């Protein structure tokens, strides 16, 4: 379980990058847009899962960090004229710093209190996005300028697709390394029993703050990716509906497992698209369907789809 991940896991990443380069010429732009969105969600959900599934902290601030990463990337591009490969890490770093500062007081709280405090922070952040007109454009939002990567102008989803595939592959690689490392073991121990963790010499506060910060970094990176596939942002895009969506992805797919999170991202992420195209009148029912899926999943598959599948396979052996 620990030590370096097996080679086959890294081959999957290479395949992902290869698809990133091979697919665009053959697939309609619209589908590439969908896949791009899914990759942004995947980055966000992977970070959320590090916090929830691996270190056992239920926090709801990730949309705020997503927003900070996105605004940060756009503002650094606009004001300082930075290329994307500097602006995006810059935005993500700001998100991580904000995450660190939020983590210090909020990780003193547990369970529902942590959830409430981070929920309040997320709403506060949205208020700031909406009110700091000089920086964020306020309610009017910001038009995202065309990003450049190594001199290439990113004007279409076709061009963006390989870039996002590479970023996501890197995040997946990092996640594998983290969860199978000493730090991953510390997070799991804190999740399962804080008493055991403390009695084993683990600095529980440090692990929580670090997990929170890394999770905020992932959200910030996802925000930078989001800036690449959009032409406009305002505060409304960083609200609670997004937070619930990311939460559903992690919970329905399977907390604490990378394949589980990816399954959740695809299922929950494609749901509105399917509802829109196939069942035009069903779009109204979207929220209800999410709710029912989440409830059913928590009741009948507490470890998510991936947990249920691996559990069934293990039981059969």
């Amino acid at each position: 379980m620990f030590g370096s991940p097996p080679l086959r896991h890294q081959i999957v990443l290479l395949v992902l990058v290869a698809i990133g380069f091979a697919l665009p010429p053959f697939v309609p732009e619209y589908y590439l847009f969908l896949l791009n969105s899914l990759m942004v969600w995947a980055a966000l959900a992977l970070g959320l899962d590090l916090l929830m599934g691996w270190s056992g902290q239920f926090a709801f601030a990730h949309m705020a960090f997503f927003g900070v990463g996105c605004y940060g990337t756009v503002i650094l591009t606009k004001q300082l004229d930075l290329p994307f490969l500097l602006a995006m890490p810059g935005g993500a770093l700001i998100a991580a710093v904000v995450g660190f500062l939020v983590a210090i007081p909020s990780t003193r709280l547990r369970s529902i209190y942590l959830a409430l405090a981070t929920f309040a922070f997320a709403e506060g952040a949205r208020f700031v996005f909406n009110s700091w007109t000089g920086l964020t454009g306020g309610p009017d939002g910001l038009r995202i300028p065309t990003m450049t990567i190594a001199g290439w102008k990113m004007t279409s989803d076709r061009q963006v697709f390989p870039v996002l595939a590479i970023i996501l592959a890197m995040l997946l690689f990092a996640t594998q390394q983290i969860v199978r490392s000493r730090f991953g073991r510390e997070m799991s121990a804190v999740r399962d029993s804080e008493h055991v963790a403390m009695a084993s010499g683990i600095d529980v506060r440090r692990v929580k703050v670090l997990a929170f910060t890394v999770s905020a970094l992932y959200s910030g990176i996802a925000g930078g990716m989001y800036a690449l596939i959009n032409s406009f942002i305002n505060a409304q895009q960083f609200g609670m509906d997004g937070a619930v969506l990311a939460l559903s992805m992690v919970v329905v797919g399977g907390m604490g497992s990378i394949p589980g999170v990816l399954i959740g991202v695809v299922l929950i992420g494609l749901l509105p698209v399917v509802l829109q195209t196939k069942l035009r009148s069903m779009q109204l029912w979207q929220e209800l369907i999410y709710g029912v899926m989440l409830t059913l999943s928590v009741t009948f598959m507490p470890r998510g789809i991936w947990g249920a599948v691996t559990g069934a396979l293990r039981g059969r052996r």
Partner: protein
Amino acid sequence: MSVSVLFRIEDLLVQFGGLRAIDAFSMEVEQGSIHALIGPNGAGKSTVLNCVSRFVTPRSGRMVFDGRDLLAARPHVVTRMGIARTFQNIELCREMSVLENVLVGAMSQTPRYLPFLPGFARGRIERDAVMQAEALLERTGLLPFRDAKAADLDFGRQKLLDLTRALAAKPRMLFLDEPAAGLRNAEITALDALLVDLVRGGGLTIVLVEHVMQLVMSVADHITVLNFGRRIADGGPAEIRRNPDVIEAYLGTDAHAAG
């Protein structure tokens, strides 16, 4: 004969609201001994232990381990100083495997490395940690269950895993909170043998927290008796067995009235 005191508690006072859970409690633990801390249910034994682990902060008093002040340390530092413990109501990382639980226990002994560098250091550190964990599991007889989920073990083996996890921290002093509770007789005998072996052969110091008096009589070098948060007796097993206060605490005063 010179004996050295490894651990000392002086005048401990713990107050929960209006209740004095621990009152003016003192004890000294000698290096390399098995020291039993006994008392009826609710006497405050686990509270003393939770003070040592720094889960509970006493209102006043001192705790000194090997010349260092425990009250100045945060919980994880206590373990790094060389004090490990088990839990009365088994606490395990339930979702993790048996091996992983022992690796968690060995965390204070495992060097840090950066997760992003899959280099030689990481591989060597992890291999060493796994080898040592397996050796320890062999010793406590859990090696056949190496990959089982901790939550799936039976009760006796969960207690044994709790102990193995604590031993993985390579403590100098080990607090065991009712290690025999709920175990079958054969399991208790094996546990006693293991503990004696660890102390006589490995130089470990053990504090045994227990409410069943008979269990500690055969293994303990020294016994401290606690009742209603106060120390009522302190001495060798034979001495404690005859102490009228201890008999009263365990059997009540009716025995005298009837006799």
